[in-house]
């Protein structure tokens, strides 16, 4: 249970990764990150305002040394832009790690697998530790592992949809076959979804909107932390086989009145 998750040889103390976008305010974000126990937290890379440069929350987070910042390439629709964004992130944050996102449809935020594999291949060659947000497709995940990705991050359901794990059988299949860690990314709506992901065999879960947009992000962050731990324990303990008929749990000998 306490075995750390290893990604590219780096041990991570928490199997819950947390996004930093969309919280009601800065204090709630800081409190929620604290409550989540997360070590790896995601950030985006954006053009600075040319009118005024002010210290951002990310400057604060990055300066504490408590969190490992994982930059993403969110919003990129071409491999070229995603690769440049990753290179800018490496320069800005002094990290080789990147959450690679390549979006093929702006309404669905669904990955463009063809470009994703191409960009992942390029970035691995440039020395990046690539964690791609991808479809819940065992073949796509295998291709991403084959080009050297350090993990795969299949979606549970659409980003921000809160619909949980739409295809648990596919996620379980990916977990069974993947040679690299599997991180469920996108679609988590509440704590039981995170627990389910871990029960299916995922190595970690990435949550943003389900925490940030809940009524009480601090409590939801704590709930996600508990759910990831519970799901991991349940997975390791092993669920019982399903049966068609009832199986009494109390002894059948010595019943009163027989």
């Amino acid at each position, binding site marked *: 249970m306490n075995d750390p998750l290893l990604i590219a040889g780096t041990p991570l103390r928490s199997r819950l990764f947390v996004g930093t976008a969309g919280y009601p305010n800065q204090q709630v974000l800081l409190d929620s990150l604290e409550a989540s126990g997360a070590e790896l937290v995601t950030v985006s890379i954006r053009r600075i305002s040319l009118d005024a440069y002010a210290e951002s929350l990310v400057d604060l987070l990055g300066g504490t040394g408590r969190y490992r910042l994982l930059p993403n390439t969110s919003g990129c629709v071409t491999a070229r832009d995603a690769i440049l964004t990753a290179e800018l*992130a490496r*320069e800005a944050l002094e990290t080789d790690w990147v959450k690679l996102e390549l979006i093929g449809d702006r309404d669905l935020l669904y990955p463009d697998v063809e470009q994703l594999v191409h960009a992942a291949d390029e970035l691995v060659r440039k020395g990046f530790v690539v964690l791609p947000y991808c479809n819940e497709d065992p073949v796509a995940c295998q291709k991403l592992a084959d080009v050297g990705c350090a993990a795969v991050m299949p979606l549970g359901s659409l980003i921000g949809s809160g619909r949980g794990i739409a295809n648990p059988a596919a996620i379980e299949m990916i977990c069974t076959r993947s040679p690299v860690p599997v991180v469920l990314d996108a679609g988590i709506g509440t704590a039981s979804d995170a627990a389910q992901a871990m029960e299916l065999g995922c190595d970690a879960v990435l949550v943003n909107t389900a925490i940030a947009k809940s009524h009480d992000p601090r409590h939801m962050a704590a709930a996600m932390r508990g759910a990831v731990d519970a799901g991991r324990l349940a997975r390791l303990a092993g669920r019982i086989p399903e049966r068609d008929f009832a199986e009494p749990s109390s002894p059948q000998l010595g019943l009163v009145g027989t």
Partner: protein
Amino acid sequence: MTRLRINGEEAEIAAATIAELLVQRGIDAKARFLAVALNGAVVRRAEWPSQPLSAGDTVEIVRPLQGG
């Protein structure tokens, strides 16, 4: 004056290098977590004072922000 495209916007700038451009734009070049690309390639921080700018160059100046 040099005509550049900075973060997607055309601008006339009297700056000969990346470092001068940042100063002109009120950006502290010593601030952490900044990165600059010139014509699609990252320019390392150490090269900002020496990297010349030419008319028609495209410059991206970025920083990390909240993200998922």
